[in-house]
């Protein structure tokens, strides 16, 4: 089995002032029936950093994100947010952690009975009771303006394209000003121009909001554009981690094959 190639990472690159990364995934294992999907995955990420998780289709990238947000339970291992292990938390306790995270689903997962504005307002209505209705409306307009959808407030999700749905999904994910942003294949199914627009949008939002972000993608070009570090999964394990230049220097056959084909 090839050993993981990892650059010697300076401690301050992955740790905050108090020595604890904002998100730490440690030795995660997950199987569905007889199929092993994650086989000892460990990752860390700090505030303001973007980590891209790459790999072939079906290697558990999306499952990793779902475990981090708590939609799946790992068979073993831990997920620590600010040092707290979230794996064993009950639904309502997990809610407090989830308010600090934003999640963009692969198909955006917009609520199809609500308008674009209502979708973005949904988390605010449930968690920002202290805001007045006009404050919420202003916040919704601000978020949609950030993603270039300010003119489509009253449209239904079925009336807008896939790329536009992703933008609205991104605005919704940012509604509660999360510390951690999780993006599941943000450019999947989009044409190259729309993909580039989404990449630039994520980059701009990342600079403005200084969140820790994990982007799951099989699009190497997108990963190079938006990520500070890349982690390559194969057979449920991280086989390489570092910058794109570091991965290019790897002597692991799978890494070279992936970079060549991407």
């Amino acid at each position, binding site marked *: 089995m090839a050993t993981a190639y990892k650059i010697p990472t300076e401690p301050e690159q992955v740790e905050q002032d108090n020595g604890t990364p904002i998100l730490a995934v440690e030795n995660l294992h997950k199987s*569905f*029936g*007889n*199929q092993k*999907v994650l086989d000892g995955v460990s990752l860390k990420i700090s505030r303001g950093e973007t980590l891209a998780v790459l790999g072939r*289709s*079906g290697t*558990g*990238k*999306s*499952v990793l994100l*779902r475990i981090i*947000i*708590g*939609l799946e339970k790992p068979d073993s291992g831990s997920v620590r947010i600010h040092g707290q292990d979230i794996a064993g938390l009950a*639904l*309502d306790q*997990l*809610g*407090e952690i*989830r*308010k600090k*995270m934003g*999640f963009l*689903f*692969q*198909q955006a*997962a*917009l*609520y*199809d009975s609500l308008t674009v504005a209502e979708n973005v307002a*949904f*988390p605010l209505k*449930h*968690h920002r009771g202290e805001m007045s209705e006009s404050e919420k409306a202003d916040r919704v307009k601000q978020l949609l303006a950030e993603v270039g959808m300010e003119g489509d407030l009253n449209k239904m999700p079925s009336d807008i394209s896939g790329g536009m749905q992703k933008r609205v999904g991104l605005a*919704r994910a940012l509604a*509660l000003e999360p510390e951690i942003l999780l993006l599941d294949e943000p450019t999947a199914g989009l044409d190259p121009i729309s993909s580039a627009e989404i990449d630039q949008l994520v980059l701009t939002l990342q600079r403005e909001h200084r969140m820790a972000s994990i982007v799951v993608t099989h699009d190497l070009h997108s990963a190079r554009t938006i990520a500070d570090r890349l982690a390559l999964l194969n057979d449920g394990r991280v086989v390489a981690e570092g910058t794109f230049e570091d991965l290019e220097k790897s002597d692991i056959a799978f890494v070279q094959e992936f970079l060549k084909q991407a």
Partner: protein
Amino acid sequence: MSAPPSGQRSLPAFSAAGLIKALINDPLEWFGNLTIFFWQVLRAAVTSPFEGRELVRQLDEVGSKSLPLVAMAGTAIGAVLSMEARFSLVQFGAKALLPATVVWSIIQEMGPIITSLVVCGRVGAGIGAELASMKVTEQIDAIEASAINPYRLLAATRILACILMLPLLTVVADGCGVFAGWLAQTLVEPISFRRFIDAGFNGATLNLFLPPTFKTAVFGLIVGLIASFQGMRTRGGAGGVGRAATNSVVLSSLFVILADVVLVKFILVFFP
């Protein structure tokens, strides 16, 4: 990435193991999962924050929008009952008992059961399909990822709406049925509505009306619970949505009828 199929092997339909699985293992597993689901909904329903706005929306969806259908069903049943009962009672020389026969039959049984089965079809299919569609498009996951309890927002509100609305809808069905029964009678042999009602309710107590009407709250629990469960546990895309809607109607109708047998006995014993 979608979750791969579970590790369970499918068994040949007509093997002994397959029959045991189909007749014993699968139903027990279904009941077990339903119980777990009910417990999760109950815990969510009794803890804050309460989803008042969504509950009001569901009360409208279940109650107001079922009203025309329930009224029509009650009217039809009342008319049919009156015509059929008249035919039988005349043969036995008991025509005078027609108003009581119609009123007592509708209020004690026909009104509640017909209303519940109509709601099983309309509301059960609607809840099952809506929640199943949300499940397969990850909308329920998005709700959960937004730190909102989907059992509280989606399931508890719908179940509570069914529990509250079914007795009210039953009253409407009863009223329409009694009126239609009078109308069918008076077209053949004129009788004033006042006389029909006096004869129909002669000797009646609150026990005639209250227990059968409130048993529909139990039916509402069955419809809402099974439809929500089928919807929120859906897998398999469009086919799964269809199965969820169908199973919601079939299973809730079946359990409403079975529950009626138990509840009728209960009412006869405790509210004679």
